[in-house]
């Protein structure tokens, strides 16, 4: 049974809002993947067991502050407790919920300065952000459609379906200047415009949830924490181009996202927000979920479509573009999760509001997954154009363990590595592409001086090579040869000729590959060559790894004077490289040693050192 009219929907919204307001106080326990792994489910269960009736305890999506989990938020007191265990719950119930005081030891303490913060709005990690797309993540129960509706959910869809014509929707999107958040940055409104103009009896909209970039997890958090927002965005896209069927393609590694989306779809159908004749119009819309099966290249739009059709997920040359010939040859629009999750906010608050955030040509906000060697890792959302320095030091809290900033790898395997000299670069599509990097998926991995940039380049090349679908020669063979050369360099066997060949190959692969995977695969190599060439030279000419990472240039040794023969190192060694009798000095067989450093960590006498 579909919502028959806007009036009927307005009544439903009032009912949802009333329900939410009736809960004077709310306890939100994060149930994102990160917090669940840290035991947030037990925390939630303990709250349910102990809580007084007046308190509404619900799970929520990811708050973004994954490392500090499990997180417990108490509203309207605006208290955020971090690292909560089930054993802490009784104290929270007594001290905070009953007596109205805070449990100080559970508050967030800055890992570098040690300062204590009470709630989200005080913690620099949050206070420097502006949340639009992630506004509901961590604030609502993703499994309860009423909470989404109470926060103006599906309002934008109702407006788009009942009040606006498809052309008006597209005009609004064009005016907003929203660019695809999947990485390419193509204007979303134009994409919709092309598909709108294509003539066909059947069209499709597809949500690309195949987030394969290592180090990026914003799409996952949105799908897990606010699934209705993705569905709403997709429905608006469907209305704009004239599609009655939408697909959400989610990668296989995200089972929780699939489960939450499935439940969200069921709820939306039950209350009549999906189905036939929505809001009394002739617009019908429903969504099908397709699970990926583990292929990075399926993030590329034509490969993704092949995968939905049940074929090998290989890209094909464009044109024809999916807007004209997409799924089963029909006009199709493909948008990234984050793009679609931004659409409802634009439809609700207008293009002008959206243009007022960010910077010219790059309006709005962008989510980044900030990880690596920073104090605060997690998911953040900032206006386009914030500088790398602000993100790493203000929000990320600087580097952990008093280390120096060395590089930021931005945009995953399609992006590049920036050095300390680029710290003041604005994070937006145009500024980043000028220095050879990319917004890409928004993965931002911070590295300290203990990271070898050549090894990082090798790591990404290994990824690109193993994920190449093999259809076109430059990508299949080129990335393989590039990887071989990089392995020679980190293995201490390379010459300057190899370096020249690497650079030449990188340009060939970049310019002649069929799809985005191959075209961008050389980016990490090219940017490290540009900003960290001295490290390549150190490996090749001086036979040393400046960061002390590359195993070919180092060896672990046991100091016989300090070794007491406790056998701990021998037992820890994963490859059996250490031998020796009890109570007499042990030795490491260098030809067997995997140089993992486990022995050094295990030795209680500090007898093992790296040279």
């Amino acid at each position, binding site marked *: 049974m579909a919502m028959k009219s806007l009036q009927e929907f307005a009544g439903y919204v009032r009912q949802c809002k009333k329900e939410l307001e009736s809960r004077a106080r709310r306890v939100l326990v994060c149930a994102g*993947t*990160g917090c*669940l*792994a*840290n035991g947030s489910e037990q925390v939630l269960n303990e709250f349910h067991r102990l809580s007084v009736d007046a308190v509404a305890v619900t799970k929520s999506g990811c708050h973004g*502050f*994954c*490392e500090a*989990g499990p997180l417990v938020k108490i509203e309207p007191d605006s208290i955020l407790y971090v690292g909560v265990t089930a054993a802490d719950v009784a104290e929270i119930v007594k001290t905070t919920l009953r007596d109205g005081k805070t449990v100080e030891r559970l508050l967030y303490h800055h890992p570098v300065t040690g300062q204590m913060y009470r709630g989200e709005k005080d913690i620099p990690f949050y206070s420097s952000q502006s949340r639009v797309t992630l506004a509901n993540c961590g604030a609502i129960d993703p499994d309860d459609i009423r909470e989404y509706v109470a926060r103006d959910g599906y309002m934008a869809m109702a407006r788009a379906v009942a009040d606006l014509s498809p052309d008006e929707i597209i005009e609004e999107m064009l005016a907003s200047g929203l660019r695809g958040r999947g990485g390419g940055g193509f204007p979303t409104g134009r994409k919709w415009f092309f598909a709108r103009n294509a003539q066909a009896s059947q069209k499709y909209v597809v949500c690309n949830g195949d*987030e*394969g*970039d*290592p*180090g*990026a*997890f914003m799409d*996952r958090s949105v799908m897990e924490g606010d699934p209705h927002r993705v569905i709403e965005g997709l429905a608006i896209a469907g209305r704009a181009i004239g599609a009655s069927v939408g697909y959400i393609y989610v990668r*296989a*590694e*995200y*089972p929780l996202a699939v489960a939450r989306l499935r439940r969200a779809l069921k709820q939306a159908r039950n209350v009549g927000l999906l189905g036939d004749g929505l809001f009394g119009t002739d617009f019908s819309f429903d969504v099908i979920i*397709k*699970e*990926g*099966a*583990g*292929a*990075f290249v399926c993030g590329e739009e034509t490969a993704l479509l092949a*995968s*939905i*059709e*049940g*074929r*090998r*997920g290989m890209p094909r040359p464009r044109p024809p573009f999916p807007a004209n010939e997409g799924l089963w040859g029909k006009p199709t629009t493909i948008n990234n999760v984050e793009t679609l999750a931004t659409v409802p906010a634009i439809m609700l608050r207008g293009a002008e509001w959206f243009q007022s955030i960010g910077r010219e040509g790059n309006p709005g906000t962008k989510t980044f*997954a900030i*990880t*690596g*060697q920073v104090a605060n*890792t*997690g*998911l953040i959302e900032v206006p386009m154009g914030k500088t790398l320095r602000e993100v790493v030091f203000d929000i990320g809290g600087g580097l952990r363990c008093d280390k120096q900033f060395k590089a930021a*790898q931005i945009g*995953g395997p399609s992006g590049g590595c920036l050095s300390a000299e680029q710290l003041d670069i604005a994070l937006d599509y145009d500024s980043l592409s000028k220095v050879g990097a990319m917004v890409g998926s928004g*993965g931002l*991995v911070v*590295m300290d001086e203990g*990271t070898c940039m050549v090894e*990082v380049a090798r*790591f*990404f090349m290994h990824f690109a090579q193993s*994920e190449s*679908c093999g259809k076109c020669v430059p990508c299949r063979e080129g990335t393989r040869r590039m990887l071989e050369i990089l392995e020679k360099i980190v293995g201490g066997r390379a010459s300057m000729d190899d370096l020249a060949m690497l650079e030449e190959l990188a340009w060939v692969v970049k310019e002649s590959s069929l799809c985005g995977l191959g075209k961008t695969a050389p980016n990490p190599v090219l940017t490290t060559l540009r900003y960290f060439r001295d490290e390549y030279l150190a490996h090749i000419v001086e036979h040393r790894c400046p960061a002390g990472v590359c195993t070919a240039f180092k060896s672990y040794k046991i100091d016989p004077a300090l070794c007491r023969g406790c056998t701990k190192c021998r037992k*820890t060694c*994963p*490859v059996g490289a250490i031998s020796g009798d009890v109570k007499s000095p042990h030795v490491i067989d260098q030809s067997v040693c995997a140089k*993992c*450093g*486990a022995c050094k*960590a295990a030795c209680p006498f500090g007898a093992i050192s790296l040279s």
Partner: protein
Amino acid sequence: MTPVETAQRKFRRVNEIIEVHGHEQAALVPILQEVQAEYRYLPEEILTYISTAMRIPAATVFGVATFYAQFSLEPKGKYLVRCCDGTACHVRNSKPVYDAIRAKVGLTDGKFTTPDLKFTVETVSCLGACGLAPVITINNEVHGKMTPEAAAIIIDTLLKRDGDN
């Protein structure tokens, strides 16, 4: 039971799965996923059977089954340990964790599954739990902030649990 009956029993479940999803090629990936969930890998004779039942060329079925990383044509272990080697995990030393787990379950050479089919140890490119790096999953249960020592303890617990049964 005659061999024919055994074969019928074997394919009955596959038939049920195909019935649910239909015979269109678009259903091939979900069907393979469900079959793999049932058998923990894709046995060759079942792939051939699917090809016949769905009237899709065997080359297409095998092509799809070998293209996607999720599918395995080899039996996998009871415990599927996936060590994340995404960028965040990689820079926070995921490699020693992987090595320690392999050593703990006794995997050598290029093998990923132990001969007793108890453990399969693989690396994956990103599990999307980067805030907890390095991360491993065991049959989809996530364990974050791993160290070689912690991983060894988890494996020990699994071994012990199996020993008790």
